[in-house]
């Protein structure tokens, strides 16, 4: 049965794992663990042999689309190529097999790598201090807001609101709630940037922070960024940079230079940590001097020692907001990010952003023509940065197919669809981020696929509405999955 779970492949008495012989002289388990704490029924884990274990997961893996198979223009996700070198490096025993409680003097290589990565991220952000601790973008956001609160409280201020443009990523408002603030939406102007009037009206002494992505989720660089910063600083709030779109501006423009106080990085986007089907990532945060005392602990400190330097973890940070997670953060993502920065250098990083912008604009221009130009109109018709948003409203109205149908039909072309229905501001949104690692022929193929899908829909919209056809499964019933959730196998 190709659909069986690993539990259903279980047969009594089989096993894969082997363990060393239990050869110590010691009491039996019954003597060691009191009865109230002893497990009565062993967990019904699968009983499978190693060959069948491997076949099961190799088989499952084949039911995934993945970046090494084809184009993945998932807007806002920066699905760029993940260098194979990074996996080799992250697996080195000195990194992979290092215990987090290793005394600093025995972990100098790891600490030096973290220190160097912090310095590199600080330079890229244009802000002097970095914590690597947050385990993902969302933790980075929470970190930024808790830093903001600590900063204001340190000044004796209580502020309750965080301003967020209506184009923002969903994590922004969710984080605001979790941080105990009230989110306040700021509108978008006709050019796709922040509505300055609305911002001026809403920024006041209750404002703790403005969270902004620049370029924003429309892929547009906010040309009023300096003015925005002046407004926000004018009311004593912090200016937070959501680094999800940093891939557009490396070496071209720095958040710190734009006036931001706090920046989070998505190492799994800009710095090409593989996405793993949903993690791991990492969300380091860079801050300006006035926020440094509040950074999570520990921080990596470098000290002169003889001819060289010694590195240590500093826990003695009395004004710190504390911890966002265990230990030092997602260290192996630091290894990959550092290797990436070392390989590319300043010119390579700038070129990454330039080519990300070139690829996006080329694709945008190609899609402004033909049927795409007719049915998929730009959300905002401007030169974009690394991504852009189209609206399938005309497709829906003229052809009767929705953005979702186009997405599903693309699956039959062995192309991953763009992000759909985000940002919310754009009706029937298709958010397209090709990234710099795609060659032009993949972009051309994507255009060809969209043209064909639209042409076919002119003839028969049912084709797209019922797509996909060639995938391991077809459209799934999400409604009943949510109504009567079955979230585990009932074991017998």
């Amino acid at each position, binding site marked *: 049965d190709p659909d069986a*779970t*690993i*539990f259903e492949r279980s047969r009594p008495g089989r*096993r*894969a794992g082997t363990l*060393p012989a239990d050869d110590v002289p010691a*009491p*039996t388990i019954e003597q060691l663990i*009191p009865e109230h704490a*002893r*497990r009565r029924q062993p*967990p019904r884990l699968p009983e499978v042999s190693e060959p069948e274990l491997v076949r099961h997961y190799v088989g499952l*893996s084949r039911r995934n689309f*993945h970046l090494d198979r084809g184009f993945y223009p998932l807007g806002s996700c920066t*699905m760029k190529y993940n260098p194979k*070198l990074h996996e080799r490096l992250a697996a080195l*025993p000195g*990194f992979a097999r290092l*215990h987090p*409680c290793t*005394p600093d003097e*025995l*972990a100098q*290589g790891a600490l030096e790598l973290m220190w160097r990565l912090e310095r590199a991220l600080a330079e890229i952000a244009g802000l002097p201090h970095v914590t690597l601790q947050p*385990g993902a973008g969302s933790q980075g956001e*929470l970190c930024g807001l*808790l830093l903001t609160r600590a900063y204001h409280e340190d000044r004796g201020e209580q502020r309750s609101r965080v301003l967020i443009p209506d184009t923002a990523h969903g*994590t922004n408002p969710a984080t605001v709630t979790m941080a105990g603030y009230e989110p306040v939406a700021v509108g978008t102007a006709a050019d796709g940037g922040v509505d300055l009037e609305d911002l001026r009206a809403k920024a006041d002494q209750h404002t703790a922070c403005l969270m902004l992505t620049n370029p924003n989720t429309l892929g547009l660089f906010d040309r009023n960024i300096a003015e925005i910063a002046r407004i926000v600083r004018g009311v004593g709030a912090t200016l937070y940079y959501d680094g999800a779109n940093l891939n557009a501006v490396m070496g*071209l423009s720095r958040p710190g230079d734009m006036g931001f106080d706090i920046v989070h990085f*998505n190492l799994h986007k800009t710095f090409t940590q593989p*996405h*793993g*089907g949903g993690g*791991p990532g990492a969300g380091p945060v860079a801050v300006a001097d006035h926020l440094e005392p509040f950074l999570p602990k520990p921080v990596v400190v470098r000290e002169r020692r003889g001819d060289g330097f010694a590195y240590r973890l500093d826990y003695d940070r009395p004004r710190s907001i504390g*911890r966002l*997670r*265990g*230990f030092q*953060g997602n*260290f192996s993502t630091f290894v990959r990010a*550092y290797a990436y920065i*070392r390989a590319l250098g300043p*010119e390579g990083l700038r070129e990454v952003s330039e*080519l990300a912008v070139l690829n996006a604009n080329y694709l945008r*221009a190609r899609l402004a023509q033909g049927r795409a130009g007719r049915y998929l109109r730009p959300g905002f018709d401007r*030169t974009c940065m690394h991504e852009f948003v189209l609206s399938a409203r005309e497709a829906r109205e003229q052809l009767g197919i929705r953005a979702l149908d186009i997405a*599903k039909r693309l699956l039959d072309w062995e192309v991953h*669809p763009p992000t759909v229905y985000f940002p919310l501001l754009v009706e029937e949104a298709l958010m397209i981020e090709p990234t710099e*690692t795609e060659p*032009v022929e993949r972009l051309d193929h994507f255009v060809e696929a969209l043209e064909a899908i639209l042409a076919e829909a002119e003839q028969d919209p049912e084709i797209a509405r019922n797509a996909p056809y060639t995938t391991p*499964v077809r459209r*799934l019933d*999400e409604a*009943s*999955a*949510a109504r009567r959730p079955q*979230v*585990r*196998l009932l*074991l017998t």
Partner: protein
Amino acid sequence: MSGVRYTSAASGDRERMLATLGVASVEQLLSHEIPEEVRLRRPLELPAGASEGEVCDELRALAERNADADAWTVFAGAGMYDHYVPAVVDEIIRRSEFLTPYTPYQPEVSQGTLQVMFEFQTAICELTGLEVANAGVYDGPSAVAAAAYLVRLDNGRRRIVVSRAVHPHARETLATHARGFGMEVVETPLAADGRTDIARLAAAIDADTACVIVQQPNFLGSVEDLATLAQAAHEHGAAAVCVADPLTLGVLEAPGVLGFDVCVGEGQALGNHLQYGGPSFGFFAARERYLRRMPGRIAGRTRDVDGRPGYVLTLQTREQHIRRERATHNICTAQQLNALAGLVYLAWLGKAGIVELGELLARRAHFARAALGLEPINPGPVVREFAVRVPDLEALFARAYEQRVIPGVRLADFYPEYPDGLLVAVTERRSRADIERLAALVRETQPQAPSALPREGVPA
């Protein structure tokens, strides 16, 4: 070198693309968009790029300056453990098909990841004895904070009572997050035997207590009396939250069976490399009533239009990308690949293996505690880790380093009240010979150590 690293556009490609755009250069595009006042007009101050071989050598040199658990004999634990990671785990998680896809928003082409999530949820439910689980959260400590937030969303109460025997990182993480949630954290002390002082904990619970949080085994390695603790919580209508070490759940009773409402924990011990502390994963299981407020991704089983079984991300209305400020948590990219490693490890170990391994660890821990001949801080039952007093800790560490041994974790780094405490963890990789080597190091460096315990089971 420039212009060729991981990108595809050679100069000819660029010319063709620029021609399509009707511009002469990328700079021309950018100059209209990024105001000059915020343009960076100098190269980033970073070392010049290097070839793949050079980067490889440079990072290898850094890696070699770390005392890794292959070259060193490591008795450190404190929440992460040097277990053997089977080759099948690395083989499977490094397949591109699992390594490089995004979160499975398009279920038709993500059945591999989605079924993995479903299987993982099943395994976590089975281990913890609870009805529902998500597909993983960031790590153990942040899972604890997430548990408190969940309970707060559910019962609206504001106080969290947490035992000091819970991992210090979890308590610190909880405190940090609680400031955001607007919750108050109350910590209750250890008893003299290194376990949670149940009476003091029970006394701290009141009608505004959202939940009680304890850990099994606790940070010192002791086995707690979970049933009694759950009862204490429930008497005041508070939820009972257990932080558990999943690898010990082959021999220790499932928290769900003992009355706990939520069970979370650190997953590293399940097939994840140490990686200096991360990434690993946190797991999160609860009673069914919490399902619609749980954080994190959840896969659900359903059918496609042809009636074929399949999986989807379900209950997404809990999540930030749908519900924004009304989401139940802000988790986005989590730890899917690490959870996959955990799942493959559990399947590798299997029903018999998890019990065998649990027994092996318990017996080795006990043997080691006796063999060291030092005064125990927590003399009661332990299952993989224990704390002892070492009169001259520095002498022990210094001598141990010479033999490439890390003898444990200095307890005072976490609990200043134990200045001479050493927390010692065993795994199946710490052979009897390794343990005896550590005991010899203790004997060499601690001539004055009291032999407080009879050395049961240790051959004369």
